[in-house]
């Protein structure tokens, strides 16, 4: 019996030469819980997060959503509930608005409509005017791009966010904006889960309720 929203059980991932990149790693995120995954670079943090999002094939273990293994045909639906965000925001050609609207054209989100008011309200809370939506994506700073990627994800009302060092290489202002956005998203509705990957333990302490530590592909704490 598992009360977890998202759970990794005995995850194993091998390199091509057969060496384990991740070995027997387990992790569970309960509703409302914020978990930080920390460790030095190369410890397997990002690989674990990608495995949780089912983005990479794994050679051992399984990923469960609300206690059930995620089978192949349910993967898009699962990824719409547990959204993974890249370390460096991935934006497409076009304006900020066009970028935020990208997922609305996917079959899994077909019932959703573009809510300009909601997007504008979010931007206002970040001190940006509604015309920010018209800005070409290629003109955005790293921090702004990360904000757009974040808004694009949270408009889909995910239950879990999987964030891979979202503030790496950003200036202090941008770090504060992103941290604030993540915190307000999490507090907005009860039961939302968060997995925050980072190497800054002080920040991990701010962003999460508990910490999971990896070393050389194994869970050590």
């Amino acid at each position, binding site marked *: 019996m598992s009360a977890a929203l998202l759970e990794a059980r005995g995850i194993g991932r091998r390199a*091509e030469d057969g060496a384990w990149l991740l070995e027997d790693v387990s992790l569970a995120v309960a509703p409302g819980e914020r978990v930080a995954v920390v460790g030095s670079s190369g410890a397997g943090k990002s690989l674990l997060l990608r495995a949780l*999002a*089912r*983005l*990479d*094939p794994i050679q051992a273990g399984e990923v469960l959503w609300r206690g059930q293994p995620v089978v*192949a045909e349910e*993967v*898009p*639906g699962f*990824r*719409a509930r547990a*959204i*993974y*965000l*890249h370390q*460096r925001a*991935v934006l*497409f050609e076009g304006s900020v608005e066009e970028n935020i609207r*990208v*997922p609305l054209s*996917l*079959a*899994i*989100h077909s019932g959703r409509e573009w809510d300009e008011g909601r997007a504008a309200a979010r931007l206002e809370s970040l001190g940006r005017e509604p015309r920010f939506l018209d800005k070409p994506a290629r003109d955005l700073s790293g921090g702004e791009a990360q904000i757009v*990627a974040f808004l*694009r*994800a949270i408009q*889909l009302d995910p239950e879990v966010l999987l964030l891979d060092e979202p503030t790496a290489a950003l200036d202090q202002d941008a770090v504060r904006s992103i941290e604030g956005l993540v915190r307000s998203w999490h507090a907005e509705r009860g039961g939302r889960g968060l997995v925050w990957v980072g190497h800054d333990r002080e920040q991990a302490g701010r962003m999460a309720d508990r910490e999971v530590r990896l070393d050389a592909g194994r869970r050590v704490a």
Partner: protein
Amino acid sequence: MERRLLVAATRTVLQLALIGLVLDWVFAIRSPWVVVPLMALMALVAGVAAVRRTDRRYRGIWLNSLVSIFASSWIVTGVALLAIVRVRPWYDPQYAIPLLGMVLGNTLNGISLGLDRLTEELSSRRDRVEALLALGATRWEAAREPVRRSVRTGMIPIINSMMIVGIVSIPGMMTGQLLAGVDPLNAVEYQIVIMFLIASATALGTVGVVLLGYRRLFSPDHQFLYQQIRRS
């Protein structure tokens, strides 16, 4: 430069002389036991050549190329021999070999361009493909744009040559027929049929190989297996 020109000229003479001798023998024998294996060999060489020209490869690319080139060129040449030209017997080497050769030469181009573009697009846009998957896209939704661009790239040469045929260039086959004294209108008629055959085979082969590549590079779990793409 002079050396390369000399080598190229010598190869032209030797290769054409050799194929002339082979064709002379095949035309004289007129046996399906000779014609069919020869056609298979031609398709095999074309399938291998298509992959040799690509910058990036993945496991299974050789099989994908062979399956696509065999299926497209044999189907189209078969339709031409049985339904359009109505040759009797169907394996008459005087028709079967040159028709297949013309179809293969062009299909090979389409397949190799399509494959090259597919692996290039997917490598350079890996983060976008993954971002779509992470937002809940199916593997097809994530790959659709690269797949579309690859098919389009594979079709460019044949579409271009269909656009300019007769204006800028007179195709080799038609030139040959004219030189051999065939009535120009008759030669044109043949050429039109040939162009359509080539275009259909190229379309079939390019779409086929790109879709096979897509299935290799995206797992049923909607994962993009980017590790499989390697520089050759």
